[in-house]
């Protein structure tokens, strides 16, 4: 027994060995996981930068950190860039760990202000004014041409902390209507939300598709519908004071409740959280008015080229027209607009070589760089078309070699630097009938949009959500829970039957707002508004940018 006792001790020691083994096995691995050796290309300085990984790259192309475009950047750019991939949908987690452990790259590309603002609060970011003044040429010029970019990048301490870009200011969501149904039922496109209700009801009840069944929907509860009523909870500005209003919700609930009770909309719309079911109904020719997101080339193209074709197959004679947002009892509101001034990059406070970072940003700001990192190489991926803009040579090749690029390698490139070729409408080839239609519809959409702005349509909210401040940490949980519960309550009110009146819903929403520290949140926004109303990007500024871009749009769409 004595013998075996000693042996058991030996075996027992292996329990303790677990820890030691762990300590040993890493040593041979340490070399591999360190910074990958600089493949010495001359005297170029090395910087590190993030790149979004969306899982869309083909294995034949390599990885997001190492492929033909990263090589192109390192060969043609002023710096060697070592890329760190950040999974697109988990960028908050990934960036937080990188920063917390002190291994964050020098240059961080990130869209979400709710990730970047806390980094500023935690003093993890480097102010950019000195870098720009001392080293920049190209980006500095972009700032001079677009002072608004500097204005919105300036944080509460008066310094600039973010690089950004000017985007094409176009509607994010649009509404289209089945003109053939309108004609058949002898109706006209709705001008007010009351008429919208009437038309939708007729679409659902008067069998516009003529199949003898009541299987059509008036409209889909899609992106932008709430904006017609002025958005959810928002603020009215009265003498420089923000006054919280729930009127948008009130009219929205009132409107949607009737549609729901009368079977004008899909009763299961609540479970259709990504809009797939709504799109199915639309493609099957079952939806009269379709609210849809259309803020990029691929979405516009999908709606007017591929989806329209599918719709016509399933519902011969289908005819789609643009439907301007009708006027609600809360006023006339404009479509939500793509964020025209978007901040997309910050610099790590610990960046070793700010000069190199600045040179890289300058490189990315050049029109040639922007063009290559969007359209690829001339003669390989594109050639110049009639309009003087790049035309794709081989769709399939580009899908593999460019599909994963998007604008992810050059997130600070402004459309204003790229000129007319950077605008969406330049990408449509008018020689192809379906693309010509897409382009015509785009023109129509823009004209509606301009005239709505001219007629004083209001912005559905205080300002663009990306330009709202991040609620401070101590109020954040309350603010998030509050808006979730208010959202649930709105849904409950819509499906809650006749006894659940809009007024009752609003008083319950107000109670919830009070419960979740609404007064403090209001005070926070008030304080921000008072201090920043002249410098922050407000709706007037957005409309101004739309007007500034009108000349370019007109030139493309003439």
């Amino acid at each position, binding site marked *: 027994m004595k013998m075996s006792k000693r042996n058991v001790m030996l075996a027992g020691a292996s*329990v303790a060995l*677990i820890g030691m083994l*762990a300590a040993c096995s890493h040593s041979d691995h340490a070399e591999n996981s360190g910074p990958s050796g600089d493949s010495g290309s001359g005297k170029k300085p090395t910087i590190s930068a993030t790149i979004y990984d969306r899982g869309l790259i083909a294995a034949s192309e390599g990885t997001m950190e190492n492929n033909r475009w990263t090589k192109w950047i390192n060969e043609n750019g002023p710096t060697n860039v070592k890329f760190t991939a950040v999974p697109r949908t988990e960028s908050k987690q990934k960036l937080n760990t990188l920063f917390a452990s002190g291994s964050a790259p020098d240059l961080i590309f990130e869209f979400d202000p709710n990730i970047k603002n806390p980094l500023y609060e935690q003093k993890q970011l480097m102010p950019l004014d000195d870098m720009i003044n001392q080293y920049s040429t190209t980006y500095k010029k972009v700032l001079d041409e677009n002072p608004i970019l500097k204005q919105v990048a300036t944080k509460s301490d008066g310094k600039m902390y973010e690089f950004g870009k000017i985007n094409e200011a176009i509607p994010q969501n649009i509404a289209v209507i089945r003109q053939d149904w309108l004609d058949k039922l002898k109706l006209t496109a709705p001008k007010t939300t009351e008429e919208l209700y009437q038309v939708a009801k007729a679409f659902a009840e008067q069998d516009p598709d003529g199949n003898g069944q009541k299987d059509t929907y008036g409209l889909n509860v899609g992106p932008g519908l709430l904006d017609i009523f002025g958005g959810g909870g928002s603020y009215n500005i009265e003498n420089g004071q923000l006054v919280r209003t729930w009127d948008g919700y009130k009219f929205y609930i009132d409107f949607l409740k009737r549609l729901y009770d009368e079977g004008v909309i899909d009763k299961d719309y609540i479970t259709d959280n990504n809009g797939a079911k709504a799109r199915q109904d639309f493609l099957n020719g079952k939806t009269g008015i379709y609210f849809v997101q259309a803020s990029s080339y691929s979405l516009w193209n999908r709606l007017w080229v591929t989806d329209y074709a599918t719709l016509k197959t399933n519902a011969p004679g289908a005819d789609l027209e643009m439907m301007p947002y009708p006027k609600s009892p809360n006023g006339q509101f404009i479509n939500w607009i793509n964020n025209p001034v*978007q901040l997309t990059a910050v610099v790590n406070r610990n960046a070793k070589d700010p000069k190199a970072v600045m040179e890289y940003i300058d490189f990315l700001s050049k029109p040639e760089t922007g063009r290559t990192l969007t359209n690829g190489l001339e003669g390989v991926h594109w050639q110049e078309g009639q309009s003087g803009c790049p035309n794709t040579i081989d769709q399939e090749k580009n899908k593999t070699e460019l599909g994963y690029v998007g604008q992810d390698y050059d997130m600070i490139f402004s459309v204003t630097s790229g000129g007319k070729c950077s605008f969406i409408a330049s990408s449509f080839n008018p020689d192809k009938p379906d693309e010509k239609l897409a382009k015509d519809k785009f023109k129509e959409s823009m004209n509606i949009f301009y005239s709505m702005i001219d007629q004083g349509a209001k912005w559905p909210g205080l300002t663009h959500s*990306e330009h709202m401040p991040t609620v401070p940490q101590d109020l954040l949980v309350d603010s998030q829970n509050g808006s979730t519960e208010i959202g649930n309550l709105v849904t409950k009110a819509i499906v809650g039957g006749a006894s659940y009146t809009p007024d009752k819903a609003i008083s319950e929403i107000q109670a919830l707002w009070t419960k979740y520290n609404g007064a403090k949140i209001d005070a926070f926004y008030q304080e921000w508004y008072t201090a920043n109303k002249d410098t922050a990007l407000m709706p007037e500024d957005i409309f101004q940018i739309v007007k500034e871009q009108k000349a370019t749009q007109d030139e493309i769409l003439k």
Partner: protein
Amino acid sequence: MRESSGDRITRIGISFLLLLISISCLAPVINILSVSFSGKQAVETGKVLLWPVDATLQSYSALFEGTRVLASLWNGVVMTVGGVIISMVFTICAAYPLSKGYFYGRRTFTLLLLFTMVFTGGLIPTYLVVKSLGLIDSYWAIWLPGAVSTYNMLIMRSYFESMEPEIEEAARIDGCKEWTLLFRIILPLSMPVMATLILFYGVGYWNSFMNVLIYINSTEKYTITVLIQQMIASQSLLTEALVNDSQAMLLVPEGIRSAGIIVLILPMVLIYPFLQKYFVKGVMLGSVKG
């Protein structure tokens, strides 16, 4: 023994209920399988339910040619197999001595291990430890911190404890030493618990997502779970639409996502039937003390 009619009705009722439950579990899987083999337009217009419409392999060819699915599948296998081996070795080495009543300090060690079930280090501190050991960006960062799951170790320990002491005594009389005893006698008799834990660890490693995301920096080393999760989650970027992200509009079509899900679950689905017969026995054993 003849079944009474009451028993019979109960049996039929239970079978029917179980049938309903299995159908409700299987239907979504079959739906995804059908979607993955259907034409794009049929999927988008909602025509696919439980059988492929316009059957095609397009989604799979797009998945295999257009993404890093093969490379990441291989990574997933490497990480899972490596992880299971490491975990099993350490778990056995911990469970065996702790199962012996005469092992010195058995109580203390057990308590120390139990402690980790209640208290953990938290994400950032753990990350810093892993980083200071130089394990970042290698699978060791996933294998080592989670090498022993205390819960699994306890299952194995109670299995060892439940073995007749006579077996051990007989072996020792025949001159068996400690390691021989473990490898030649105890482990071969423990196949049920081994199979169970291999499955537990295997599924755990195969599905591990956050750890890979946090500790692995090179996308080259991403596993299939991370890749597929990325494809599926990208959908939410569009619906949230709070942030302008033009590339997010490049949606991965539903067919390709479904094909990805099928590729992701296939290995586990294939392995389960082979281990299942041990599986039930393994979890059961140790639960009855006699």
